[in-house]
Each structure stands twice: as C-alpha cells, then as structure tokens.
C-alpha cells in the first residue's frame, strides 16, 4: 500500500510542479460550461438536458486530462525508471489513485460551477446524486487509467484516447445520466437500485480487468 501511495505522491508532486494536466483541464471546464451557457441563453431547457450535459462535460474533461499520467511518462522517457523501481500492479494502482483524486477535483469544480451557473439544474435527491458522483468517478478513473496505459504505447495518442474510451465509458455515462435524471426528478434511492448495481459492477469489473491485463501492456 505504501508503494502505491508513493507513486501517487510522485505524480501529485510532479503535477503541482509541471501543471501538465491541471491547467488544460481547468481551461477546458471553463470553456465547456461557457459554451453551454451561451448556447442556452435565456431559453428554458428541460431538466433532463442539464443532467445529460453535465456528464458530457465530465466525459470530455476526462478525455483531455486523465491520459496524462501514462502519456507524460512515455513522452518524457521515464517509463523505464518506473519499471525498474516498482511492481506493475503498484504502478497501475498509484496512477489510478492519482486519476481518482484528479477526477474528483475536476468533477467537483464542474458540479459547483454547473450548479452556480444554471439555476434550472436543481437536484431534488442530493443523496442519490452524491452516490452516483462517487461511483461514476471511480469508474471513469478506473477505465481512463487502463486506456491511458494502452494508448501511451501508440503513435497517435491524442486521437486514440477518445476513440478507445467512448465504447468503454458509454455504458457508465448512460447509467450516470439516468441516475442524475432520477436525482433531478427527486425519485427515491430504492427505485434506482438496478442502475446502482450496474455502476458498482462496472467499477469492480474495470478495476479487476485492469489489474489482470496491465502487466502485459506495461512490459511491451
């Protein structure tokens, strides 16, 4: 566990010094929310649309920032030193932890900004939204980390990341949109049990599968 934490700490300190992902992400969030704000204008959009748009911003933010953990190591040539000092599973989980903290931070910023800017975005079942937010972030961080590991070895990293991520993240995003819609409508938690079970299963499957395949990806 300590080794995983130190890999996370390395990435965290590195990010604070280089701002490799953070600056791009914050700019992306501001631009994306502004575009939605200007495009809606004074129109009254249905509440469901806001729920969908929220996760669209989250998805594209994840696309623009979460690949950096592995891509930056590959681009700077530091992959080898990392291979020489740590077990592949520690590397994967350290990177996952970093992406998890990063996605929690950026998604909290998006949520606060969204809630402040769009007065029509009213969450009536806040508890449900928080659970979906937590499970969604774990799923996004889990799948983004393993996809980042795969694309970091490829030549066309920038285009490959969203292409690979879309089919993998689609079931998660659809489920998150559905649950956010429920929380906006004020539906009780019991009525969304099936959707939450899908979210929990997705998170467990993605993290387990990532641990199983990572070593093969990492070695070549």
């Amino acid at each position, binding site marked *: 566990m300590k080794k995983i934490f130190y890999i996370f700490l390395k990435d965290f300190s590195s990010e604070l010094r280089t701002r490799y992902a953070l600056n791009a992400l914050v700019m992306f969030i501001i631009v994306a929310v502004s575009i939605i704000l200007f495009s809606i204008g004074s129109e009254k959009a249905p509440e469901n649309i806001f729920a969908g748009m929220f996760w669209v911003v989250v998805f594209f933010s994840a696309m623009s920032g979460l690949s950096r953990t592995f891509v930056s190591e590959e681009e700077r040539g530091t992959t*080898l*030193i990392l291979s*020489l*000092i*740590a*077990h592949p599973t520690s590397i994967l989980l350290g990177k996952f932890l970093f992406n998890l903290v990063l996605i929690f931070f950026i998604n909290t910023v998006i949520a606060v900004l969204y809630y402040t800017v769009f007065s029509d975005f009213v969450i009536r079942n806040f508890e449900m939204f928080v659970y979906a937010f937590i499970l969604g972030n774990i799923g996004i961080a889990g799948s983004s980390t393993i996809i980042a590991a795969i694309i970091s070895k490829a030549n066309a990293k920038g285009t490959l990341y969203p292409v690979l991520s879309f089919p993998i993240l689609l079931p998660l995003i659809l489920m998150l949109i559905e649950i956010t819609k429920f929380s906006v409508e004020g539906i009780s938690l019991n009525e969304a049990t099936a959707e939450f079970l899908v979210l929990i299963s997705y998170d467990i499957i993605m993290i387990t599968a990532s641990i199983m395949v990572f070593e093969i990806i990492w070695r*070549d």
Partner: protein
Amino acid sequence: MIKISLEVQNLKKLFSRRLIFKELDFSLNQSQSLIIAGKNGSGKSTLIKIIAGVLSHSGGNIRYIKEGKEIDKEKIFNFIGLVSPYLILYDEFTAKENLELFARIRGLKIETDLIDNLLNEIGLYDRRNDLLRTFSSGMKQRMKYASSILHNPLVLLIDEPTSNLDLLGKEFVQNLIQRYRKEKIVIVATNDREDYSFGDSVINLDDYK
C-alpha cells in the same frame, strides 16, 4: 556473500518479423561479469532490457536463482540495477528528491546518510538540491549510477558505461564495477574495446543472427 545466478537459455528476440538475435545461451554466478558486444543495432540494449525484465522476449528462457530458489519474474526488479543512455530520471525533482523517491517506492528505509553518502560518492552532494533539468548530461549519467545502486542490487546491468562522463566520472565507474564484480553479477553492453576489461567473458551478438 549472497548466492545469485542468471541462466539464459536459447533466448530469441524478434521485433515484428525482424530477428534481433537467436539461440543465445549463457549463465553467470555471483562474482562473474560479462561483456555484451556487437555493432550498432545488433540488439545489445534490447538484450539488457530483456535481462532487466522490462522487455519481453520472443523465445527461450531467463531465470534468476537466489540461494537455490528461482526469483519470481514480477520481483526481479528488486535485485537489478540498470544504467543506460535511455534511462531518464525525473527532471522536475532535485537530485536528492529523485533518490528519496526511488527509495520510498522501492520500500527502502530512508536514511539521510545513505543518500548523502551516495550523492557524495558520485560527486553531486553540492548540487543535491538542484533540479535535474539544470544538470549536464554527464551529471545526469552520474545520477543514473546513484539510482541503480541505491538498493544494493545483486545484478548490475550497464549499457555504455562511460558515455558522457569526464575522467573523474570514468574513474568512479571503474571503481564501482570492480567493487561489484567481487560479489555480484555485472553485465556491461559496450562497443568500446577499453571497456572489455570490465568483464570475464565476451558475447558478440553479431554471432547470434
């Protein structure tokens, strides 16, 4: 002295369909050293990476045996130190931070004396708090040596041992290799005939095509 041996049997490496080397066999025990020679592109660095366990091979077998027990492939990195031109450390951290970071990730106890002594040994103690991005290529090469011996490895792999080093640096490398040759396995990949003195035997990869 800890007993360690490396057995390489019928090793083969292909990149797509291009053969790098095949039918490579050798074995080494503690206190033995090997020179890997061959012209540019013969696969010296590839072989070093395969022996280090960071690159897969296409055929054959590599085994590390410590005190009669085979080391699990996933744990090989604990016993290996690697220095090579393609090994790049973290530019955004200082020399001391890099070594502390590696020690922590490896699970070693951080002893300030150990890291300070190491920095002193490589002649970079005065620059310990400077970011690596401000270092010259020779200073970075010295840092690579420090990172590779931090955990006192049983197998030391060195690709192009004296590249970018000044006279003092070369002297440090010679002393280090002589010290490690007494108790551990040392493998050096080089084109420089002067470096052949670092090894007990020589393998020329041009003969394994």
